[in-house]
């Protein structure tokens, strides 16, 4: 006990994290060894790792892992940016005008409970398997958190700023862009983080069905040829990129929160 208390906290964190990973891999190997499922349905960790490295170097269904990831990321960016471009202005408008808020709320509140993946059939029918279809599915995942956080952030903006801006002669557009938007940035950025996570998750769902490239597509093809290592390698790649996006946005969030604390 005393030894544990005197050791550095980061060392303790590292030790526990590593223990968790080792335990997980141990269970995995055990399941493989005991053949819980047929051997070819559950590859061993080192086989997945081997395949992961191989996928980076050699193309599978036309592309290397890096290229698949890049095309997935492009789709993600399309949907995510579209969600930002519509969600932020609409959220600010809803905060500014009760009319707009009443107009949007009923539709939005019912649509947002439909899982993004449920849009896949229509995404394919309306926009095809190129760039459009997956973009719609990602948008459906990424849009609600942007809108909700922008709206909530904007309605809780201190009234004194709004009164000051109106007294200074600001019209609705100036009020939105110069006051509501900067004042609710911390909330908006927090929303973007949630939105990016949900969008990235929806992307893979979309690609499982409508795409001719991308990590999700790669996984489907891997499954079809019962190359389970490929499916798992895809899962790892998705996890890693998702984590990367989250770290990036978390850094951005921390910056805005720090800015807010000084007031």
């Amino acid at each position, binding site marked *: 006990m005393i030894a544990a208390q005197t050791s550095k906290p980061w060392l303790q964190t590292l030790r526990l994290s590593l223990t968790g990973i080792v335990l997980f891999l141990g269970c995995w190997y055990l399941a493989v060894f005991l053949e819980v499922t047929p051997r070819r349905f559950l590859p061993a960790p080192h086989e997945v790792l081997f395949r992961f490295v191989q996928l980076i170097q050699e193309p599978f269904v036309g592309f290397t892992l890096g290229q698949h990831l890049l095309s997935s990321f492009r789709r993600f960016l399309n949907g995510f940016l579209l969600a930002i471009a519509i969600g932020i202005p609409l959220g600010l408008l809803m905060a500014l005008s009760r009319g707009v808020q009443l107009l949007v709320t009923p539709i939005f509140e019912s649509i947002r409970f439909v899982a993004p993946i449920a849009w896949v059939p229509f995404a394919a029918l309306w926009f095809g398997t190129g760039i459009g279809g997956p973009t719609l599915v990602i948008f459906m995942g990424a849009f609600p958190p942007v809108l909700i956080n922008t709206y909530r952030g904007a309605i809780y903006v201190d009234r*004194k700023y709004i009164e000051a801006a109106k*007294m200074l002669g600001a019209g609705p557009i100036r009020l939105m862009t110069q006051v509501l938007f900067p004042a609710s940035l911390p909330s908006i950025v927090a929303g973007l983080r949630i939105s990016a996570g949900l969008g990235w998750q929806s992307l893979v769902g979309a690609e499982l069905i409508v795409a001719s490239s991308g990590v999700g597509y790669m996984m489907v093809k891997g499954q079809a040829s019962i190359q389970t290592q490929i499916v798992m390698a895809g899962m790892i790649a998705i996890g890693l990129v998702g984590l990367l996006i989250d770290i990036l946005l978390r850094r951005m969030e921390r910056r805005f929160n720090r800015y807010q604390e*000084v007031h």
Partner: protein
Amino acid sequence: MADIRFEAVQRAFVQGGKEFLAVGGIDLVVANEEFVAIVGPSGCGKTTCMRMVAGLDQPSSGRVLVNGQEVTGPGPERAVVFQQFALFPWKTVFENIAFGLRAMGLGQTEIDDRVNRFISMMGLSGYEQAYPHQLSGGMQQRVAIARAYVLDPGVLLMDEPFGALDAQTRVVMQEELVRLARKNPKTVLFITHAVEEAVYLADRVVVMSRRPGLIREIIDVKSIREKERWDDHPRIEDVMDLGSFVHLRSHIWRTLREQHLGDDQ
């Protein structure tokens, strides 16, 4: 050119399901370029009176007219200096002061000219690119005053603008406001609960009673100030030592105190 006119103004609020009168029926005319201070105990509706002139609140009955026009909403011809400053924390000192001019659609050169004039007049030179949180309370209030003055408004509304400042800063700001107001006379409605401040700054002092807010007495300070030559004394403490000042202050204090006694009975 602007005057303010309250015509039988009442303002009722609903609190806990009950309606109560915050402002009980005010008739008052503030002449063009006159500096009027309203004093009264907290909750007497003095801030509500100012907000109705600003257009941030509406009377329940009666009318508030500025320049003969009924006030329907906020606007830059009636600039407000708020007690809590209400500077935009995400904008620099320069951009805070320029905000209203940009909304007016003025050109960059005119904005630069006007903003820089008030930056030097308010002793803010060198802080143009600073953000409000980097300034002291006194400096922040200078920015807020500059932001209102730079609009060249017909009416200037001040809601306990020095209430959040420490005593020393407050005195400096009061002296500066007197200098500024004598140099650029404006129609000013100044809300405060500090009697000395009201007597020192205003041409007339309006004493309000507790809820429902009514005018108890209006004191003409200007004629006494001119007769006793207060403005010959540059320092506030010298003015406050003058017999005529002490007399006025005591008189207003007594009026305020009588109401408290009246309320308690």
